[in-house]
């Protein structure tokens, strides 16, 4: 790339340890503006845990996360953990910056979930509309008494637009959970987009989709990336999808980064092939 890269997400030496289990071990990675970056690895490699750290669901045991140049999360092993810490680089950090997931979302990182988490008792439309609440300026009084009509209308419009975009216009008023699986995944993406993110984290968006749907999804991801000027960080098992859409790929195994590079590089990387197929040595 000719022009200088603008970093969006910078993960630095992140370790997440649960008791004696190190789920993510000293992970460092970058996502630059306008990129689609993939995180792959066998089941239980710690991919979703990495997402949960970035989105503030878990506080990392050690390490730092920067978003658009600002440190949003930082921690180092303290107290009892100090003694039991199994990772590396603990001496690098001295701050403890904790942000709850809602604040991370407000900064502009949106996500979807591996096991779809839609609001069950709400319609498709309401599911998307929820995401606009965060940026709403109305206080509880003006919202209750309808004094924010203009804002509310704009939010409804935005929600409807996003629903149209993901092709769920005809189902806008049905219960979200009554949708077929593939559409639920799209709805989750629409909902994430309604928070107006600059970085979108997709956790296995193609899980449970047939090849046709997966193809559509690849198209769709590229499309929303362009339309919303997004950077996308995606966890996926579908190799065809990953290879066709990602600019760069990180490979995680047993919590540790074992390879990174362009799709071609990864496809030909012996370590990655071993990790996926198993050599008998690592297991």
């Amino acid at each position: 790339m000719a022009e200088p890269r603008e970093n969006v997400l910078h993960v630095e030496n992140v370790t997440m340890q649960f008791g004696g289990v190190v789920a993510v071990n000293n992970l460092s990675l970058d996502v630059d503006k306008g990129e689609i970056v993939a995180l792959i690895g066998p089941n239980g490699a710690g991919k979703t845990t990495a997402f949960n750290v970035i989105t503030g669901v878990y506080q990392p045991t050690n390490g730092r996360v920067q978003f658009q140049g600002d440190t949003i999360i930082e921690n180092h092993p303290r107290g009892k953990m100090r003694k039991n810490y199994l990772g590396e680089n603990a001496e690098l950090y001295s701050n403890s910056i904790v942000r709850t997931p809602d604040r991370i979302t407000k900064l502009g990182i949106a996500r979807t979930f591996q096991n779809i988490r839609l609001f069950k008792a709400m319609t498709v439309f309401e599911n998307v509309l929820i995401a606009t609440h965060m940026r709403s300026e109305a206080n509880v009084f003006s919202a209750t008494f309808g004094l924010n009509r203009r804002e509310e209308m704009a939010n409804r419009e935005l929600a409807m637009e996003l629903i149209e975009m993901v092709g769920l216009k005809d189902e806008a008023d049905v219960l979200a959970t009554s949708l077929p699986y593939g559409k639920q995944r799209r709805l989750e993406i629409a909902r994430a987009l309604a928070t107006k993110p600059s970085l979108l984290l997709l956790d296995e968006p193609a899980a449970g989709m047939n090849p046709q749907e997966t193809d559509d999804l690849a198209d769709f991801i590229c499309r929303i990336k362009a339309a919303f000027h997004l950077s996308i960080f995606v966890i996926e098992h579908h190799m065809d999808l990953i290879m066709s859409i990602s600019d760069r790929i990180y490979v995680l195994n047993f919590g540790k980064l074992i390879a990174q590079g362009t799709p071609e590089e990864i496809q030909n990387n012996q370590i990655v092939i071993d990790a996926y197929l198993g050599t008998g040595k690592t297991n």
Partner: protein
Amino acid sequence: MSKMKEKAVSSKMNGGYVPGSSGHVYQKRRDPHHVRSAVLTIAACILLAALMAFYQKNASDHSYAISIIERSAVYAVAAAAMNLVTGFTGLFSLGAAGFMAIGAYTTAVLTIPLSARASVYYMNGIAPWLENLQVPVLVAMILGGLISAGFAALIGIPVLRLKSDYLAIATLGFAEIIRTVLAAPMMDQITNGSYGLNNIPGFTNIFQPLILAAVCIAIMMLLLHSSYGRAFKAVRDDEVAAEAMGINLFRTKELSFVISSFFMGISGGMLALFMRSIDTKTFQITMTYNILLIVVLGGIGSITGSIIGALLINGGQEWLRFLDEPLTVGGVSIPLFRPGFRMVIYSIVLMVVVLFWRRGIMGDREFSWNHLFSVFRRKKKASQGGAQ
């Protein structure tokens, strides 16, 4: 979704799509029967008002009915407030009785006529600052609601971080603490300790409690329809997803809890006016359970359900009074009927609803004429089908 359609959308995207610029105007999907619904609603209101006016005019003949309706109005507000926090925000709070006690005592203390105070407080005396402090009833009630909300805000800080069942027991505990403090000897000159308060001015006509309840419930319904209400429901449905949508869990729960407690305080004030004399025994855990019964019967997550539940339970209290009185059929007295039987029936109803009819009367939907019509139509069709 067909691929072609998607392509069509995507071509539009490629031409420099900017969110919000498509010119598509969101239109609220119109209810095809909205005129019918509006007419029916207005008609029902007029009919109701006429009936109330009739009762009011012949108050002495209908004191029974009036008392049922007034009590129902009080409980409907309390049940709707409990529903707000339990049914819509998913917080199983059992603090209702405590918040109602705060509202009731505030209202009572500030509205007992100055002339009656010496006789009300004859045992313990009255606190000097209170002796000449009297405010209009409405102001006192709102003040009661605000104090109750203030307490809720304080209690909420530690308690709302707890998981469901701990929250239940902690709020229950707080309600009991509030009750103990109100009954404590140090509060004697304000709350009159175990003697309770009486001579509280009552409602002067049936419209006062009804309008008050209608306003409170309308505000709660508006709130639930606003984006804050949607945030409540999001927290109820899935906390993790709600957080990922940028909703601050604690702030949202706290808001719901505080608003709910405000209305519980108001309903407590209404109860004080309705009963005209209160003491701390009124606000025991049983009170919370009674309101819970209304909420469960009406449907967890339905405000109109709570109103219907309040009417049924309070109406039932009167209609089922015969259960508590000895019954003699053909000279043989039936031993089943004696004091307490009514409450047994009540508890069995609660159990039956919980076990076999978990949705209650309304489930989580609100009353609508369209739905009512469709139910009738289905019934009719079913009976026609049966005839053929």
